[in-house]
């Protein structure tokens, strides 16, 4: 008998990872925007993602819809628990999405749209991180409903994970721009990368210590008998960080981005190990949260049939827009 709930949990985990990989860099571009005040640089930075950002954000909608379909109780309880951070995240996404369209058309109001793009990207990232932190700390669910206070989600820990996610996405954005730009702009991206790497490493270190200290269940998972299997995770993190710093020194264009992805994959693996097998920590397991079998099956058919096609044409679109983006490149207005 197939474990449909487990398959669905894996699909959603995969969807979230793809979301972080794809939308992470385009939100990150908005965050590193602040370091590049020149209009021409900014337009190049935006043009590198203009053809793909819509598709990147669709993964976030898939995450939401997938939860809604496969684990309705998670969708309803977690989303109402994280009400304010989610609303603020959505506000950020609206601001930056509109800025994408309008920045190039505006003249006098361009600084306003730059600000909207930066604030929007930063807000969306920060509040996603707050949501993540609050989720790790656990959500009070009684009788399939959120039973806590609307401000439970704002803790020192969740605010810190918000900041940590900003460093993560900024690094992805910087790595992406190293691939997509050249000349002066690329050199400045290379210079920014080490600082972001150290910021992310520090954030990962703090979260790795803070989480087990405040969550005994997670502590016993990591420092219990499984320790012998889990110790390579932090070592791999250090190896990735070292690789990024070296790649920056030698001017390797693609390695900083790819190693950042590896860093994120490791952090994500750590997160999954910590919450397993819960879908709402601390008490609701993925099996308890699953939708009726008929819903899981019906939707799974669509995912199995269509997701490979989506990945194929998403890849095609990236391939069409491969190569460096330069100032005065045509066709982006």
């Amino acid at each position: 008998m197939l474990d449909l709930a487990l398959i669905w949990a894996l699909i959603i985990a995969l969807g979230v990872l793809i979301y972080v990989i794809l939308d992470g860099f385009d939100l990150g571009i908005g965050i590193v925007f602040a370091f590049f005040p020149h209009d021409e640089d900014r337009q190049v930075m935006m043009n590198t993602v203009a053809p793909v950002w819509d598709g990147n954000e669709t993964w976030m909608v898939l995450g939401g819809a997938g939860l809604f379909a496969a684990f309705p109780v998670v969708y309803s309880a977690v989303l109402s628990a994280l009400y304010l951070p989610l609303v603020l995240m959505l506000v950020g996404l609206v601001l930056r999405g509109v800025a994408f369209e309008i920045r190039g058309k505006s003249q006098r109001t361009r600084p306003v749209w730059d600000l909207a793009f930066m604030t929007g990207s930063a807000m969306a990232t920060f509040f996603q991180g707050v949501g993540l932190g609050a989720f790790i700390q656990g959500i009070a669910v009684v009788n399939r409903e959120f039973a806590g206070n609307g401000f439970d989600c704002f803790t020192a820990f969740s605010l810190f994970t918000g900041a940590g996610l900003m460093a993560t996405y900024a690094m992805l954005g910087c790595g992406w721009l190293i691939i997509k730009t050249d000349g002066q702009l690329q050199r400045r991206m290379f210079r920014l990368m080490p600082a972001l790497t150290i910021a992310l490493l520090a954030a990962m270190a703090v979260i790795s210590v803070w989480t087990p200290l405040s969550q005994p269940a997670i502590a016993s998972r990591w420092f219990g008998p499984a320790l012998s299997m889990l110790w390579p995770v932090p070592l791999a993190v250090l190896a990735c960080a070292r690789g990024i710093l070296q790649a920056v020194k030698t001017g390797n264009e693609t390695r900083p981005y790819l190693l950042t992805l590896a860093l994120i994959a490791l952090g994500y693996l750590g997160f999954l190990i910590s919450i397993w097998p819960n879908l709402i920590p601390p008490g609701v397991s993925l099996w308890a949260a699953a939708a009726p079998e008929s819903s899981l099956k019906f939707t799974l058919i669509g995912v199995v049939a269509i997701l490979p096609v989506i990945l194929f044409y998403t890849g095609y679109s990236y391939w069409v827009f491969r190569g460096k983006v330069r100032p005065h490149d045509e066709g982006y207005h």
Partner: protein
Amino acid sequence: MIDIAAIELARIQFAFTVSFHIIFPATTIGLATFIAVLEGLWLKTRREVYYTLCRFWSRAFALCFAIGVVSGIVMSYQFGTNWSVFSNFAGSITGPLLTYEVLTAFFLEAGFLGIMLFGWNKVGPRAHFAATVAVATGTLISMFWILASNSWMQTPAGYRIVDGRVMPVDWMAIVFNPSFPYRFMHMALAVFAVSMLLVSATSAWHLLRNRDNGAMRTSLVMALGCLLVVTPLQALVGDAHGLNTLKYQPAKLAAIEGLWDVHPEGTPLNLFGLPDMEAETTRYSLGIPHLGSLILTHSWTGAVPNMKRFPKQDRPDSRIVFWSFRIMVGLGMLMIVLAVTGAWLHRRGRLQRAIGFLRFAVAMGPAGYVSLLAGWITSEVGRQPWVVYGLLRTSQAASPVTRQQVGLSLLIFVTLYTLVFGTGLFYLFKILRTGPEPAPALPLWNDAAARPSGRHPLQGASLEHSSRQGDNHA
């Protein structure tokens, strides 16, 4: 627990955000098909007027699409943030439908939008046309799923209730529930009417100012031609949809008609009136005898459901739907007048000099949007007091979030959307007012033979391009 004010605020927030959102998809669904047709015609005939229009409407499309996407993300999360009881109750049905929409529509649109808008010189003509068609198809598929979901909430089918929650039993019955085919057709025709009214108003506006390079005449004729097919068909589909409502949601129909009492001698049709929910009557009603029976039962004395038949707590608010319905129908009639007059003038070759008609076409530009929103208000307010008709009351469907939280988020959304809507509209008008470029740069692959002017396309493209860039950076 949940107090009245919190739920009212949540309802206002949902109504506000969804009304704002639907304006943009309604524009882009029709426009995407229009753009695909223009591109196809250009590739086939190589008449540049089609290419000019295609690039022009793509600019308006891109802006509306972006606002549609971001306001749509808000919608996809709002079911959970604000309506958790509903999501928990019906998520096993509405969740999979939404997931199918994401998988089959959103990704298709977003995946090919980049190529459609920015890929003219990155891929060949066939691949580009295929991308445009993919985007247009995506918008239509999206409408299919979201209307399946909405229609299921109006006329639920194919389910069982287990442990107080909905359990899907038959997916064909769920998707093709009783009101779905009617609502889908009605909406499909509506979005084409909306976008073609926008196109005809824009074209007429330019013609009135004598700004025409052939493109505006062509787009006016194309838009009016489409309206000539769509609007009379809409009247027929609307009538069939009404009969479907009579069968499955009689209370909604009684509220729309403002009918309180039984009329055994034949039901009149109220043209005007002020329904009063307390006094259970429609004041100042101006009715045409027997017409209600005739339209709704196709007989002289047929019985039509009346409001008093339903318990007070099960009645939708007649004061709203009575008028929203009449606004929708009235504007629909005007659209038919516009399309038929346009066709008549065109046949006599007087279309572009008919000042009065062109002004009428401009004035009708917003009519599609008003009519669309009025229709949805009729449908959604008419479903009340239920969120899932007959199964779950709206008053019991909200999240356990406080009045303060919803009040704050509502305030934020109203402010944000006003700003976004304001600027979006400003730039949309700017695009429409500026009109198409006289000779937009052709794609590099456009062969020289196709241009009788003899200008080398590569050279032409790069020249025009550099001059345009000068403008941008000035």
